[in-house]
């Protein structure tokens, strides 16, 4: 069964303290892996798409990487405004449309 697991569930950082969020996935084939940011009371906001192992994408303090079994979202020198829930999602191969979401990592950055 296709599955996405994110860890940790919650992460508390001091401002400037770099860290990484993990997304492990089990799918028969991968068409794409997506990272989203979700603020409280809002819909998810798209961050990155990764398609193949070895691919990397960067945006400001965030960098997403992909291997054959997992993806990492690296946060460099985070600021309080980076506090949010980060969701990972995969679109499996196989002809369907269903994107599978992980449960998310809640990030808290303290000033």
């Amino acid at each position, binding site marked *: 069964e296709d599955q996405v697991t994110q860890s940790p569930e919650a992460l508390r950082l001091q401002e400037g303290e770099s860290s990484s969020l993990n997304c492990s996935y089990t799918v028969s084939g991968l068409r*794409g892996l997506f990272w989203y940011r979700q603020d409280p009371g809002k819909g998810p906001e798209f961050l990155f798409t990764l398609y193949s192992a070895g691919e990397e994408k960067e945006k400001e303090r965030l960098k997403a990487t992909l291997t054959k079994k997992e993806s990492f979202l690296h946060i460099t020198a985070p600021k309080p405004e980076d506090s949010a829930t980060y969701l990972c999602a995969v679109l499996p191969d196989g002809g369907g449309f269903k994107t599978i979401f992980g449960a998310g990592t809640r990030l808290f950055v303290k000033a």
Partner: protein
Amino acid sequence: SAVISQKPSRDICQRGTSLTIQCQVDSQVTMMFWYRQQPGQSLTLIATANQGSEATYESGFVIDKFPISRPNLTFSTLTVSNMSPEDSSIYLCSVESTPNTEAFFGQGTRLTVV
């Protein structure tokens, strides 16, 4: 990217009643998706709505409980019928920029059933 307007943004409803959620997209899209996000949990796909055909429901979701309309390529509605407190959740509308790529979401509808 697509801009998605969803309303209402929140509502408190009595059990046994129904609520219709509207989703408007600023461009024509083939497929629209409806998700549910229960408190502290991730997104669960309810159904996929194509214009001109019946929606395709995921396991655990049925048309009688969550009827969906898709009258044109920019609009869809989801109705939550005969509500119970277990239906309290955030409901999200979503579209893909191009098929099988990243999704864009509306702001969500926070539903509380009392």
